[in-house]
């Protein structure tokens, strides 16, 4: 049979005691702190091995007013000494001349002189009484008590009485003298073994050590078997950890990327600094289109020119713009300028990348391409707009490409992105016809939200590149999507991130 070590130590210590032991004695005998000993006693009591008895008592200690009188005589005794020396009578006002007291202290002593019957006032004089003549013979009980409590001693009534002090008589006087003695109510606890406890000891109970930390030493020698590992309050929180994390926007971009790869698309890339040829002209955007203004597009000063693709292609694009070329279109009916086509811009959309991919694509095979990347627009900066943002563009080159398969592909794409309800309506883009605007139902807002455009590339775009299959195309802005998914108010939250957001934003949002 085993008991936790402290409980065993208490039991063993009590076993040697003939009578109930005060807790304080137990504590000093075991050299363990009071709280642990009390806890052990309580547990032993609960188990029926000890009995804890409580005895209230009063604890006495000298107060600040009483301390000086450990050495000094009480004022009334000093006055008695003066009266005795003056033949038993002295004018009150003259008393200070014969001792160290001042008039105030003499006045204060009058009450006590009266009470003890040591002197009384007669007119202007103080007259020594019967009691006063014999007062010097012996100290009063209260004086004894004061001296007994010298040196900051704290003692109980019982202790003092055991020393022969008349505590009650002393307190009868001292309790009226403010600040002389302070009294505290206390409880003395004693512990003793019960019969069961005695039997347990006799049966050879052993103590079992309690530890907090499982150490390599305990493991090494198997000592862990002989100790108790203290339980913890497991409901308390530990310190806060912030794992390194990918940016929330990165996770959105990765999700878009994964959807495209799962749908069989090839990832492509194109340069930020793009020729006007690929950014605008190859997409049948006329050279006087407002989007090409200095207002809306960033032109690049350095490098200041780009190369153009092969002459034959440039000539086909020129013809297409001017009169439709071989595409069956009327074209824009204006004069196309080569110089403008080689002006570099920061690409205004990722469609520049997909059109380059289309130019590289060999007609006759199916192809699916996508790109995610930054694009640049010269727009006033506000909470929704920055001069650079991210887009994704996808194209499908296929003999079965049609408006119906465009809608089917968009629906599949957005469903894989987590938006089950998709709706398209007619729209306009310069390089697609038919064109469609894509709307998604946002459960969190309870409304349809426009999310990007789509369409079939116009023949003016595909035929000059040698592509006779129809081509589906769609794109969307990704900051907007990320702000909706991550519940952000401003696009600046993504690019000027705060540590609290980086640290607190959970990796997984349901």
């Amino acid at each position: 049979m085993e008991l936790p070590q402290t409980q065993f130590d208490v039991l063993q210590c009590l076993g040697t005691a003939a009578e109930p032991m005060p807790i304080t004695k137990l504590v000093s005998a075991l050299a363990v702190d009071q709280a642990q000993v009390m806890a052990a006693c309580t547990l032993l009591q609960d188990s029926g091995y000890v009995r804890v008895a409580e005895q209230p008592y009063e604890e006495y200690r000298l107060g600040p007013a009483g301390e000086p009188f450990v050495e000094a005589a009480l004022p009334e005794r000093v006055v008695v000494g003066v009266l005795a020396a003056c033949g038993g009578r002295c004018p009150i006002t003259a008393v200070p001349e014969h001792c160290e007291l001042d008039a105030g202290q003499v006045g204060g002593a009058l009450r006590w002189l009266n009470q003890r019957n040591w002197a009384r006032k007669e007119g202007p004089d103080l007259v020594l009484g019967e009691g006063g003549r014999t007062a010097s013979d012996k100290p009063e009980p209260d004086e004894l008590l004061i001296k007994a409590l010298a040196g900051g001693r704290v003692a109980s009534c019982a202790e003092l009485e055991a020393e022969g002090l008349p505590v009650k008589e002393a307190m009868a006087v001292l309790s009226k003298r403010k600040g002389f003695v302070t009294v505290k109510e206390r409880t003395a606890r004693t512990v003793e073994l019960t019969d069961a406890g005695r039997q347990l000891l006799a049966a050879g109970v052993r103590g079992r050590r309690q530890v907090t930390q499982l150490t390599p030493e305990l493991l090494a020698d198997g000592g862990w078997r002989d100790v108790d590992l203290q339980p913890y309050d497991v409901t308390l929180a530990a310190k806060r950890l912030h794992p390194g994390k990918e940016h929330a926007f990165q996770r959105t971009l990765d999700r878009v990327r994964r959807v495209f790869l799962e749908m069989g698309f090839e990832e492509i890339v194109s340069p930020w600094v793009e020729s006007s040829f690929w950014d605008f002209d190859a997409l049948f955007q006329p050279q006087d289109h407002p989007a090409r203004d200095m207002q809306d597009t960033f032109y690049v000063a350095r490098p200041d020119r780009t190369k153009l693709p092969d002459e034959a292609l440039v000539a086909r694009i020129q013809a297409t713009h001017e009169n439709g070329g071989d595409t069956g279109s009327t074209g824009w009916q204006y004069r196309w300028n080569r110089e403008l086509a080689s002006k570099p811009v920061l690409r205004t959309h990722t469609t520049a990348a997909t059109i380059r991919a289309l130019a590289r694509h060999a007609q006759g095979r199916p192809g699916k391409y996508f790109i995610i990347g930054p694009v640049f627009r010269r727009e006033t900066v506000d909470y929704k707009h920055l001069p650079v943002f991210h887009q994704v563009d996808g194209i499908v080159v296929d003999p079965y490409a049609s408006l119906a398969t465009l809608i089917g592909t968009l629906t599949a794409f957005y469903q894989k992105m987590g938006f089950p309800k998709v709706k398209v309506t007619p729209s306009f883009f310069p390089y697609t016809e038919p064109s469609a605007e894509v709307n998604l139902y946002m459960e969190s807002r309870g409304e349809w939200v426009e999310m990007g455009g789509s369409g079939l590339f116009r023949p003016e775009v595909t035929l000059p590149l040698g592509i006779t299959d129809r081509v589906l195309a769609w794109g969307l802005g990704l900051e907007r999507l990320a702000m909706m998914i991550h519940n952000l108010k401003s696009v600046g939250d993504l690019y000027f991130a705060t540590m609290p957001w980086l640290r607190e934003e959970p990796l997984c949002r349901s």
Partner: protein
Amino acid sequence: MPIIDMPVDTLLAHVRAGGGAADLTAEDLVELLPRLGCEVDEVAQTQQYLCGVCGKIYDRTTAQGAPMSCSNCGTDFRAAPDSLEDLGPNTVLRLDMLAVRPDIFDPGGMARYIRGFLGIETGLPHYTLSAARLTVKVDPDLSNEDSRRPYIACAVVRNVRLDHASIKLVMNLQEDLHWALGRDRKLASIGVYDLDTLEGETFHYDAVDPDGLRFVPLGFSPGEPDSALTPREILARHKTGQAYAHLLQPFQKYPLLRDGAGTVLSMPPIINSEATRVTLQTRSFFVDVTGLSQRAVDRALNIIVTSFKEIMPRIDVECVIIEGPEGVRITPDLTPTAMTLDVPTAAATLGVELNTGEFAELLEAMGHGVEEGGQADRLTVLVPAYRHDVMHPVDLIEDAAIAHGYDNLNPELVPTFTLGRPRLIEEQAATARRIMTGLGFHQVMTLVLTSEEAAFRKWRTEPGDNIVRIENPISTEQTICRPTILPGLLETLAINKQYDLPQYLFEVGDCCLLDDTVETGAREERFLAAAMIGSHVGYADIRAVADAFVHEMGRECRIKPIEHASYIPGRAAGLYDAADRQIGLMGEVHPEVLENYGLKHPVSVLELSLERLLAD
């Protein structure tokens, strides 16, 4: 993209005119219009205001408030509050319109579109034109480079009866066409005048000396002194003149339109004259469109006269003879354009199984004419003269799709199988991010545009000659493409000065480098950048990160000391590959740099080219 206010009651009245759709409601319109390509932003209650000077009417929401000045004649309503009259409340649909369909910007054209779509009146609308009585002679000088505005088309409109609503429609249509079709008046601009104020049967469109004559422009009062201005003075002193001065300023001579008696109608594309302006009493219009594109000019006139005819059915549109340097034309010419549609191609493009007859019906519902007879799987489609957007049969195919309803198509996937193919650098970048998050770093994403100040001077270096620079930046903070990611990281640390330390940040992203060997003169390269800030952060910490990173990416590199102005001397190193090419650098950031960012704790950084590290 342009936002148009379409008055609900007027539109409903026009749709219902002539029978059919008697119980069409505003709610029906809100449901119908997106299917026609017109997004309904909102149904707005507006207040109508009248400019007493030129008759223009404004629809304004409570948020917008009353107009402060007239966009037509330039009158300042704050200076002359009596010239603005409050006409009372109105309900409009705020529509986000297809920019290429200016023929439906007004209630007349829109009603025509809706009536066709609902099947009330299908096929090519027919508009009668009366024979021309007036001629406009065009000065050959207008084709010169120094006064170039050569194209003009005109029409006469008789039997006009106007009220505030119809004047408003006329003026709004002009403005909307200026924007959508005229490229803000450059390619085409429109003037409408009271014909009864004009004399003679031959008008003149000339290039004149900007200082040679005077007339009173619209909005100025003839009784006032100094109200007659020369063309050059108008550009300087009239509000509309100032707004559009850029269209004429480079010229030696300015265009001017005058009647047989020499009265000025207008100085295109700037401003009409006060004398010829349209009022409630006007009974006949003269309309001109001038511009730099024959096609735009003709289309604009076609749209105007046909929309006027829809809004005011009793008018009589009369042609005008234009005698120009290249010959004689009669405008407006409302002859439809014939275009051939291959039906099997159309069906395959849409992904539907519809036959020739069914396609014919769809196109007629969209206001086209379809010729009788012809081959079994081909249609000859007659496209109305007011359609500006039909350049190729695909434009007709889209119309057919709209009439059929995008919602009525069966969504499908293309049946062909293709393999997804990721780019290696993206996979490698993802691995790089994984390594850095495993080391306890938080990823940030910063702007790829920066400035010389942020990327160089704050780092105690000077910008070199080899950075990609924007010609027309919109802000001083974004003038170059970033050649390094580190400034963005330190800016993020600066934003986060008050939060717990240490902070470890990284970014994996592209930088843009000048390269004259590539097609567009610059290319992107993928970099890793990392920054550590904390009371006890130093070289040893960033070095440990760099070593771990390089090892986890399966590579090795050499470390050699470097001196670099941005780093504490003796505490910076370069990373080099086996061929001794520098891959990156790292070190303790110089205290002056930290001061420039307002940072109060030491920072160590690393930046390396992922692509150079991983090159084989």
